[in-house]
């Protein structure tokens, strides 16, 4: 689908909206090839340190109310802002329209009160430390106070799933700090649609004025070398993309910290229990398919390698069922996906010729493809492709997890406990029941740390 729509988009040149301190930028437009965007005025992208940010003194309860109302407004989308963003996204995103539609339809979920308080309570220990100074008792009867002070943040967000923009706005708002969002070229529209919706809910609200969202080409020195300075910002919050993180690193130094949601990959471990009955195997294959197809495998939580405890024949049975289930539409995936890229197709064609060491199920039409191999394949399975590897025991599969492994889905649930320490030791950050990789619950750690806690500036009164 992408080729024709991309051409169409190029012909009409999509307009990218910039939001500056809560307001839509009406400045002169620049032609950036596939799209147009307002010319950047660097002065307006910073909040001077000589004064507190607009929301520094707004009580948390009020911010939560605003976010909840924003969520409701996103759900209703009366002004059609999300619909407009969705319309433009469809032309430039690698994700199919139906997946984007469903993802947009649930953006509001990130703005629900229980989830917001879960983050505040579990990550910061409560709202008190955001609203004021929390007393801390120290050894020797000393008493001090500490506060989670609002930070100045640049968010370099990822565009492979629209939820990333929602999550960034929520976290940024809860910090009370000032937030500059750099839009990625694969999602130029979601963040600004959310910010405009929030601005419509409470025009001129201090939290609204604490956000800007603009596009510049990632790595553009004329922008980044000027903005990425401790004079203006405390932290660069970078999502994925090796080039992005390495680019951001150049500016990290005293006073400017990197908070990195590193690029990640994910795997699954399927225990021998899956072969105890046909129902069990069907359940495992469906759960494995759900984890592999999250955002049509564009997301970091999406499973790419699945280790099956059993013989080659067992692995083949699982692989065949898994392949069928990859072609099923789910909340965040479509039955059809992008066609398998030519280079991957060639790698896989060669493996087909190496039967019986390798076996392949499915075709290159994007409905899902499974490879069974004696060891993990050298290439990166992408676009609803899963590599199934038989192992004698799940403990053997742990060696294939590493620092780049984010999520490990395990079947059945009861096997998690025996594996989680070893997986954590290997570098894994998240062990889930197979089928539960998508959608991280708010209030838990992300990529090995508590994001809200990392974003704050912790200040003491001793």
């Amino acid at each position, binding site marked *: 689908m992408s080729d024709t729509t991309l051409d169409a988009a190029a012909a009409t040149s999509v307009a990218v909206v910039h939001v500056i301190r809560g307001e839509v930028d009406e400045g002169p437009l620049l032609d950036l090839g596939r799209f147009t965007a307002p010319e950047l005025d660097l002065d307006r992208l910073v909040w001077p340190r000589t004064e507190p940010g607009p929301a520094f003194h707004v009580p948390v309860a009020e911010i939560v109310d605003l976010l909840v109302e924003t969520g409701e407004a996103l759900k209703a989308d009366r002004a059609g802002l999300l619909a407009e963003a969705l319309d433009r996204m469809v032309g430039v995103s690698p994700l199919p329209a139906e997946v984007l539609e469903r993802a947009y339809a649930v953006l509001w979920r990130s703005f629900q009160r229980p989830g917001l308080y879960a983050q505040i309570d579990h990550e910061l220990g409560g709202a008190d430390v955001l609203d004021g100074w929390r007393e801390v008792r120290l050894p020797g009867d000393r008493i001090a106070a500490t506060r989670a002070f609002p930070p100045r943040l640049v968010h370099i967000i990822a565009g492979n799933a629209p939820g990333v923009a929602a999550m960034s706005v929520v976290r940024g708002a809860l910090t009370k700090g000032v937030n500059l969002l750099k839009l990625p070229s*694969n999602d130029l529209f979601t963040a600004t649609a959310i910010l405009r919706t929030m601005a419509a809910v409470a025009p001129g609200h201090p939290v609204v004025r604490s956000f800007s969202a603009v596009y510049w080409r990632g790595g553009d020195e004329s922008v980044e070398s000027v903005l990425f300075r401790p004079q203006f910002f405390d932290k660069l919050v970078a999502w994925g993309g090796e080039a992005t993180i390495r680019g951001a690193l150049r500016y990290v130094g005293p006073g400017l910290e990197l908070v990195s949601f590193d690029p990640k990959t994910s795997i699954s471990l399927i225990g021998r229990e899956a072969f105890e009955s046909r129902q069990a195997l069907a359940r495992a294959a469906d759960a494995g398919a759900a984890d592999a197809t999250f955002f049509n495998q564009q997301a970091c939580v999406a499973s790419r390698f699945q280790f099956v405890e059993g013989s080659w024949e067992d692995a083949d049975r699982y692989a065949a069922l898994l392949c069928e289930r990859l072609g099923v539409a789910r909340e965040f995936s479509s039955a059809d996906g992008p066609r398998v890229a030519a280079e991957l197709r060639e790698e896989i064609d060669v493996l087909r010729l190496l039967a019986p060491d390798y076996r392949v199920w499915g075709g290159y039409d994007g409905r899902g493809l499974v490879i069974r191999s004696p060891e993990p394949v050298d290439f990166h399975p992408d676009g609803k492709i899963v590599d199934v590897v038989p192992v004698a025991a799940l403990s053997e599969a742990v060696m294939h997890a*590493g620092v780049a492994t984010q999520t490990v889905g395990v079947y059945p649930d009861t096997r998690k406990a025996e594996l989680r320490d070893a997986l954590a030791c290997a570098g894994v950050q998240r062990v889930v029941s197979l089928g539960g990789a998508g959608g991280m619950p708010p209030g838990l750690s992300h990529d090995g740390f508590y994001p809200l806690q990392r974003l704050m500036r912790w200040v003491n009164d001793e």
Partner: protein
Amino acid sequence: MATAREQIRALVQSGDPFDQPAVGVRELQLEAARETFTAQRERIPLLRTRAQETGVHEITGPDDLVPLLFSHTSYKSYPVSLITAGRWDRLLRWYTTVSVLEPGDVDMDGVRDIDEWTDRITAAGHRPYITSGTSGKVSFLNCDAGDLSFLHDILENLTCWPDPLPPKPTRRGYLLAPASGPMRSVDGFRWHAEVFARPGETRLLTEEPMRVSELMSSALLRRRMAEGTATPQEISSFETASETREQELGAAMDRIVDDIAAHRDEPLLIAGMNNQQFTLIQALRTRGVPGGSLHPDTLVLSGGGNKGRALPDDYQAQFAAFYEGVRRVRSYGMTELQGSCLACEKGNYHVPPWVIPLVLDEAGEKLLNTEHGVVEGRFAFLDVSLQGRWGGLISGDRVFVDFSPCDCGRPGPTVLPDIRRYGDLGGDDKITCAATLDSYVRGMIHG
């Protein structure tokens, strides 16, 4: 009656293969494409699979060739674990899926490493030319004996085309390369020395053969690093070994520089990849050898592009300035292509008649060839001369191809000088949180 492929191959000895009537060449090419497809489909399993998958059963025109083109990935699609685990017969089986070789053709008994593996294939009358990429995984591109002799014919007849150099051994030779190894440039440099340099008067950068295992060592270490099993000492040793090797080569280069400086009034043969050439030129200038001062019968061979952009953007201009007045081979080519596209008097690269150029869109899916005029796109081709493997390939290069007659008076098509790799033209700024293990390994080791 000679087949179309034989007729096309014979053009190399015709005096000027680039000055053939365009229509006649096109017809001959199409017939040769049919011949090669029919023959190779039977012998190369990956081509057979591709033909079945895409439903291409015959070649009626260039459009039918596009779905049959391979990408360079094909030639390095083997599982690295076959090498680390020493499963040489399995690796041979992989090789036979992308070449005309049959598993029974090669004796793999007692093979101990990847160098012996390539030696055995060479002993069977084939040559697995390797190329290395940024991942460290090398490609293996098969040539048979006929392909090698054709390469030799090209160098004897077309070196320095459009004013071919007589094949006379009159020069003092310098090969900025290892003594041997299954790399087309290494063979090419050696053969040029045999034809154009005085016997026994060729100096090498190193007497050591190029070892595939050494070239692959970074890929293998990378894999161990990704698995988390490489130790700090191992990484350190690797880096130290690279530095030591660089120092040794530096010393060898110094000796060559001295020798060239002493013999600069004689006709020389100086052959090396671009990065070695660049180092050499810098050193010669420092040694007081100015640009344009070498003997006019000197023959200079260079190539290899600017991988990883290690050289300054104007390196070609610097080469041209230093080697002003000498005979230079100027061409656009790659290991995947037999006999490069050679530059005419106007500086345009003429596609040889045994190569059907196929300009594709960036995605590599749609054919953009025209009858006349300039087309921008991804360079792909079918080399109908190849026998050892399928000659259809999609490159990573963004080119402009002129299908009209060239200003030099010969018919086209020509590749115009502005050639870039799509990879160097800049990414598209898409950011995702999903990544491969590569992100955690890259940059930690040299190369």
